[in-house]
């Protein structure tokens, strides 16, 4: 991706992160397809690449591509925000290669070794077997080192350069993000304590620190893409931080209903997490309001030109506003109250929510950042949609929404038949899984998964080629 337009090494490093993230995104979808096929045809790759392995790769690739793209986005925006080149960029580049190499080794071990004997060596070198953070312990330490290096770069640059509200929020947020990973790096025989701390990593990432990160990136995007007023954008950002952390930190309690923890978590988890959609509504209004306001001001001046200087990126940012609210907010609220969660916990409901929330809240805005990087890398003034970008966004969005609807229906069957009617036993579980609505929903999930994957191919093609497309205004 060498070219003449990038005058910042930080931005160049960002493009590395984005490239690797996009490759992992493809891997995530591919292994997701394998797992989806196995629901429909259980014999597919049985004994070779079992569901558990496909799923580990599906969700680990998800987490890692997002972390890569998140690091990349920070390296991209730091020079713009602070006004100086990122400090420690050499270390940053070295850490990128260490991180990428470690990921490749971890993936190869998942693929070809898969499981180990029940002892500590497996935990250290093959898998920790804890959903989302299966990465073996050696890789955990590698991730900690890489994350610390990243946070150090961010802090050194943030302290020396101009400290905007966005940089301040990112600094506070990223150190919490890195620090929380430590909560998932120990072994205990007590599964209640195990899951108690496991949720510190998972929940406090995706329902607190990652959401605040998205708030900061959305703020940056609004300033760079439509020229929104910094003071207004940063005020919204602080309100969002207050609401996100105010509801999200104790909202952690909605994972403590049934894992052996005391009953008072019912109340804490229910009420705090019920407020979690509020900041997402705020973010939604914020993006659309600022867009309308800036465009309106432009039109008052008699201009009919769009204020958006990067159409595909802005499309993804607006989708983020919708998707975050719908996927994380609505689909999360569906089953967050303990009265409901008693029956929906551990069913395809969670899976439906997970698909739309990860996509809506994170994938969208990170893809948007990739487009911003393509624009900057190629020195484009006004970036337009191409056929591929429109096909990509339409197919990915309809695919993910389709999967979500299918999984929600499957979740209903599971809740009604397996849980409410049959009392959650082994036999009850398979009665639910054999129901017509369930099996049909799984067929639709596979079809929609394939649609998503084709959309991804369009997206990848567009990201690789659109920079040289003459439709854009240089």
């Amino acid at each position, binding site marked *: 991706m060498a070219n003449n337009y990038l005058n910042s090494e930080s931005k160049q490093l960002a493009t590395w992160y984005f490239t690797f993230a996009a490759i992992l995104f493809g891997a995530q979808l591919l292994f997701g397809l394998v797992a989806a096929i196995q629901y429909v045809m259980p014999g597919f790759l049985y004994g070779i690449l079992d569901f558990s392995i496909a799923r580990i790769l599906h969700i680990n690739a998800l987490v890692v591509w997002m972390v890569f793209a998140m690091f990349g986005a920070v390296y991209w925006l730091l020079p713009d925000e602070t006004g100086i080149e990122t400090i420690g960029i050499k270390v940053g580049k070295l850490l990128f290669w260490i991180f990428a190499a470690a990921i490749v080794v971890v993936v190869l071990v998942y693929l070809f070794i898969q499981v180990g004997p029940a002892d500590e060596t497996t935990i250290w070198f093959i898998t920790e077997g804890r959903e989302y953070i299966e990465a073996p312990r050696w890789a955990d330490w590698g991730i900690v080192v890489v994350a610390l290096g990243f946070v150090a770069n961010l802090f050194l640059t943030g302290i020396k350069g101009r400290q905007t509200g966005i940089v301040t929020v990112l600094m506070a947020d990223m150190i919490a993000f890195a620090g929380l990973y430590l909560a998932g790096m120990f072994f205990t025989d007590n599964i209640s304590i195990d899951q108690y701390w496991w949720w510190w990593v998972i929940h406090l990432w995706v329902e607190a620190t990652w959401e605040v990160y998205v708030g900061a990136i959305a703020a940056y995007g609004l300033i760079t893409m439509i020229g929104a007023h910094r003071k207004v954008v940063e005020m919204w950002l602080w309100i969002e931080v207050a609401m996100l952390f105010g509801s999200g930190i104790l909202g952690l309690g909605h994972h403590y209903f049934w894992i052996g923890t*005391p*009953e008072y978590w019912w109340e804490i988890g229910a009420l705090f997490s019920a407020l979690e959609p509020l900041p997402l509504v705020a973010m939604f209004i914020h993006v659309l309001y600022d867009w309308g306001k800036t465009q309106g001001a432009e039109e008052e001046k008699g201009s009919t030109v769009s204020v958006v200087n990067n159409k595909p990126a802005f499309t993804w940012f607006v989708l983020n506003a919708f998707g975050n609210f719908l996927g994380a907010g609505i689909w999360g609220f569906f089953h967050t109250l303990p009265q409901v969660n008693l029956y929906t916990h551990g069913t395809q409901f969670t899976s439906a929510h997970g698909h739309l929330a990860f996509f809506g809240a994170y994938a969208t805005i990170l893809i948007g950042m990739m487009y911003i990087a393509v624009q900057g890398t190629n020195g484009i003034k006004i970036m337009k949609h191409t056929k591929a970008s429109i096909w990509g966004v339409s197919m990915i969005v309809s695919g993910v929404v389709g999967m979500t609807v299918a999984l929600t229906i499957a979740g209903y069957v599971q809740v009604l038949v397996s849980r409410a009617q049959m009392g959650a036993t082994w036999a009850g579980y398979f009665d639910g899984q054999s129901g017509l609505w369930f099996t049909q929903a799984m067929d639709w999930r596979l079809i929609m998964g394939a649609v998503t994957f084709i959309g991804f191919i369009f997206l990848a093609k567009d990201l690789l080629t659109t920079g040289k497309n003459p439709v854009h205004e240089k």
Partner: protein
Amino acid sequence: MFEPFTDVVPSFFGWLNQGPLTLTIFLHTVIILPMIWIYFQEKKRLENEE
């Protein structure tokens, strides 16, 4: 209106949990109330600036 405590082990938070809402209302209140103090402090600052 108030339900007797039903948790296994008595604790401060369990004691606050007297039936639906009591614990959450308490926690929300202690989180939000100090913002009033921040509000008046900032109001004073803004007035002084002008």
